[in-house]
């Protein structure tokens, strides 16, 4: 079950792909805004720069949290791409995310603190939908193993249209795109200075950036599972989903956390109840 190749490929390639996605993202966003935009390799320059800077910390424990965030995000992605249990993948993702939050808490700083609280609200907002997506996969494929889900021969999205829509909704939160970038944001956006990452600087911030790349690739892998019956359609779908997120990012203004929370929960509840109930009904008939 555990394929070492999947793990190795993920660990080596994910930062490259994730970085390129971030570069293309910035470029396309710039074009949407009528600007030229930075080079596609810009994210790599940024991280390279961060590693060239002096090491400054808010306290001695901060780097530990950032490093743990990094390690457990890789763990999450590696487990996912090696075909492991999807619930375990989600739990590992939560663990990674909690380390980032704790890093933000540990710096005794107002901005980072508000960022941490909002990050927790975000996690609370998207977590049910992520678990219910896994549950949806299980109901259709009878397995929690990513390997088995990926080999399912019919398009999962046809069984789980509601859950797919719900997942896309919370994907906006996970990718830290407007209108849901309430705890920290990408590009030149600023919210409560920089939210959770306010107190991270230099190489520590670099680690967090690379972790985001890993996370992006992992999340897109999740989207791919809905279309895994055909790799080509799957990849096209992933690209379209990402473009959709870009449009949403550039076309919307940031909302309050109350809206993030309410809307995500309402959508998660409605789509999962309807979709899962329909599946149960169809099975019984």
């Amino acid at each position, binding site marked *: 079950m555990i394929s070492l190749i999947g793990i190795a490929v993920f660990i080596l390639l994910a930062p490259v792909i994730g970085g390129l996605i971030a570069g293309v993202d*910035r470029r396309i966003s*710039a074009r949407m*805004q*009528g*600007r*030229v*935009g*930075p*080079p596609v390799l*810009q994210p790599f*320059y*940024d991280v*390279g*720069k961060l*590693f*060239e*800077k*002096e*090491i*400054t910390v808010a306290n001695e424990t901060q780097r530990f949290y950032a490093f743990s965030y990094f390690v457990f995000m890789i763990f999450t992605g590696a487990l996912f791409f090696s075909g492991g249990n999807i619930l375990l993948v989600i739990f590992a993702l939560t663990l990674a995310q909690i380390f980032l939050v704790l890093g933000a808490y540990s710096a005794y700083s107002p901005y980072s603190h508000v960022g941490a609280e909002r990050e927790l609200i975000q996690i609370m907002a998207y977590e049910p939908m992520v678990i219910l997506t896994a549950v949806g996969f299980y109901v259709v494929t009878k397995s929690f193993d990513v390997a088995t889900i990926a080999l399912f021969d019919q398009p999962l999205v046809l069984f789980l249209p509601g859950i797919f829509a719900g997942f896309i909704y919370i994907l906006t939160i996970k990718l830290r795109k407007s209108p849901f970038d309430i705890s920290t944001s990408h*590009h*030149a956006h*600023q919210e409560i*200075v*920089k939210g959770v*990452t*306010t*107190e*991270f*600087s*230099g190489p520590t*911030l670099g680690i967090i950036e690379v972790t985001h790349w890993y996370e992006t690739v992992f999340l897109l892998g999740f989207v791919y599972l809905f279309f895994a019956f055909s790799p080509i359609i799957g990849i096209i779908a992933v690209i379209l989903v990402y473009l959709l997120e870009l449009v949403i990012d550039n076309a919307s203004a940031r909302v309050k956390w109350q809206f993030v929370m309410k809307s995500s929960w309402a959508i998660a509840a409605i789509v999962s109840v309807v979709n899962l109930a329909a599946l149960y009904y169809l099975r019984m008939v």
Partner: protein
Amino acid sequence: MSYLSRSPWILHYDATSCNGCDIEVLACLTPMYDVERFGIINTGNPKHADIFLLTGSVNEQNREVVRNLYDQMPNPKVVVAIGICATSGGVFRECYNVAGGIDKIIPVDVYVPGCAARPESIIDGIVMALGILERKRTEMISGDKGVQPELQQGGKAQ
């Protein structure tokens, strides 16, 4: 050329400016000038910034703030004084409550004159600052691995 000059992130602080220069600094970020072409991002957070853009003549209220922001930036870093007030105090130089120029508070690397400074000259100043940033990095690596004399002073002041 290191990555440093390909990804300069800026921090912009208004130290008693009349907002004229501030508007021009922000104009650089608009589609018209689009400094993100060069990887420049306005961070709003000293801990993420490499280049410190200052406007205004610095008064008694924000003296300490300028110093504090400067101290919180990780090395290597450069300071660009934008507009004539930041350069020398401009017409406010003789006022009782102004310091008269950023370099009375912290070391300045590039002076961009003008009232208000034009976006072109601001960009020009930043590009010049990139060269200095590179040089400081080389010094940082060859020298004491990072801690510059004025920084140690800053550390004590905290």
